[in-house]
């Protein structure tokens, strides 16, 4: 069975199904109950599952995560909503020192079934702190997993897979795609949570990215096609661990790699991919792998966000730079 829905609806339906499957799954966050979340991802869920399972929290991010740890000790799972990416930092200590390490600390006795939903990346014209791409912080942290969906189908399945995971998952939702519509096959998931997927095959250049950039990359690939360049586009889906095998296989075929991300370059997931592929494909790379990323500045005022964020133009410029090496 397939259904057309937005990413928001897909997340909502996915969460609903996860709640039905597991009576010990709770949702927690600011304004997620009565209001249904500022993006309405949890719309209607409190009505259906009650205020004991869909918890409108006081305004403290550290406590949202810290109490989730305690709830996990008590045998519950939580899917926490952090209202916006930039507000995950008050919870950083609980995430990297507790959620990430508690399983290890107890020699595997405590299971941290904690999912932390982050509406991330820019593109909606928001004010400061509402457009961050903090995935690198979490990808750097042993004990965590980081994933990002880019389509309604993935939103629907990945949130369920994350909610069923015994490992904590940072779940990055590309907020600018919340209202994008797409087909969701509700019978079975098509991929594992940690698999990268080739979303457009190509032969000249491998291009990888995640979240809202999958669509941008596809557009870039289309434009490039018109100019006779064949780009293979990969949706990373999992940022930690990376599905390096899929990327490697592609680069071994194309000989070229462009990574697209909104986060700044320094010590980022993009840098990680390039450093791994530069080693794994040392003999195959015909040009240095390149990252088209946000600049090394705080996310700018929204008037400038389209310049800050990797655009089709900037991506194609990166493609040109990579191809130049052949000449």
């Amino acid at each position, binding site marked *: 069975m397939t259904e057309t829905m937005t990413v928001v609806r897909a997340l909502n339906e996915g969460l609903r199904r996860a709640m039905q499957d597991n009576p010990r799954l709770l949702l927690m966050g*600011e*304004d997620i109950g*009565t*209001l*249904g979340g*500022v993006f309405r991802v949890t719309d209607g869920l409190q009505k259906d599952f009650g205020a004991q399972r869909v918890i*409108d*929290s*006081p*305004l*403290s*991010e*550290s*406590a949202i995560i810290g109490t989730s740890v305690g709830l996990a000790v008590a045998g519950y799972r939580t899917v926490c909503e952090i209202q916006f990416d*930039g*507000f995950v*930092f*008050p919870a950083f200590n609980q995430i990297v020192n507790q959620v990430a390490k508690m399983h290890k600390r107890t020699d595997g006795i405590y299971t941290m079934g904690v999912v932390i939903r982050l509406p991330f990346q820019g593109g909606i*014209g*928001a*004010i*400061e*702190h509402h457009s961050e791409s903090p995935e690198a912080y979490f990808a750097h942290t042993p004990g965590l997993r980081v994933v990002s969906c880019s389509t309604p189908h993935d939103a629907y399945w990945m949130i369920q897979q994350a909610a069923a995971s015994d490992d904590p998952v940072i779940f990055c939702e590309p907020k600018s795609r919340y209202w994008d519509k797409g087909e969701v096959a509700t019978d079975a998931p098509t991929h594992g949570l940690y698999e990268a997927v080739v979303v457009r095959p190509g032969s000249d250049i491998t291009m990888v990215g995640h979240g809202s950039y999958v669509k941008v990359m596809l557009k870039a690939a289309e434009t490039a096609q018109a100019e006779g360049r064949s780009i293979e586009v990969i949706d990373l889906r999992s940022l930690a661990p990376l599905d390096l095998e899929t990327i490697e296989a592609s680069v071994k075929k194309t000989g070229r790699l462009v990574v697209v991300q909104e986060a*700044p*370059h*320094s010590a980022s997931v993009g840098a990680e991919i390039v450093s791994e592929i530069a080693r794994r494909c040392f003999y195959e790379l015909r040009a240095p792998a390149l990252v088209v990323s946000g*600049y*090394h*500045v*705080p996310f*700018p*005022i*929204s*008037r*400038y966000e389209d*310049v*800050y964020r990797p655009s089709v*133009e*900037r991506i194609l*410029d990166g493609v040109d730079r990579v191809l130049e090496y052949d000449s």
Partner: protein
Amino acid sequence: METESEQGLIQLLSPEGQRVTQGEYASSLNGDDVFKMYRDMVISRRIDSEATALQRQGELALWASLLGQEGAQVGAGWALRPNDFVFPSYREHAVAWCRGIPPSGMLRLFRAVSSGGWDPYEFNYSVPAIVLGSQVLHAVGYAMGIQRDGREDATMVFFGDGASSEGDTLEAFVWAASFNAPVVFFCQNNQFGISTPVTTQSRSPLYLRGPGFGFPGHRVDGNDPLAVYEVTKEALARARAGDGPTLIEAYTYRMGAHTTSDDPSRYRMGADVEKWRLRDPIERMKALLSREYGVTVDRFEEVREEAETVATELRSEILAMQATNPMEMFDHVYAHEHPRIDEGRRDLIELGLGKATS
């Protein structure tokens, strides 16, 4: 109007505009002051409604309305002295007005042309704080600076009932008590953090947290600017005299949406809003002015017209306000040279997307 939720409320002016006396507090303002205060409230509200209109017309990205909170903000704004330093949150447009910030400055953040909006040192009024609670610690730090300077000034910081649950706010209470910092914590309890009622943040009145941390806490009727003024003035005086911090909970109500992105019909009753409309701070002051000071309709009309002028000017300033050189994104990230910044600048120029800045 004593209900349990209004426990401890200090009031000097009834919702009907009648003066009331309350224990140690008495209003020290004369008719002229009251009128000027009224004027500040009317103009602030008018700036606010203009901003809301501009947002609806697509000229602002967002607006966080202060509607209903003019009493709390103007009362507090009046209590401040020029040398006091203020750390606002994002909704204190009427305090900003009292500090002399040009209305267009208040809107810069929301027009997405700046994340600040003015020179904080010109007005002794810091830039908006979006991360809830963050500014409360900044205020305590500034107050520690005042102590080290040996100045007799105070710091005042604004935050909401929601922000009172953030660790940063609570650590600020610990530190202010520990260092006896000259700071006034001004919490506008407007009953909501977006959709979340204050009862989720606290089952007991917020002002009681002051004594819990070892300093006074007061709950004042936030829709009564006269009471807010007196309570805040006293707290600031305490701070300046070296007697340490005070928590003020201004009990008020957010009459509008959280921001223009919000839909309050999802989480609150129209009846509640109606109930609070009867406690409107501006109407209350107007009633006092006509009844006690015989202020006539034409003087009110003058204020209204002045407010219209402010709004008209604001609108034209906003429409003219642009941010056109993305190259600015590289300015002031660092105070000193930085290779990544140079690299970014070069990139933007090569892409033809920005022109060089100073």
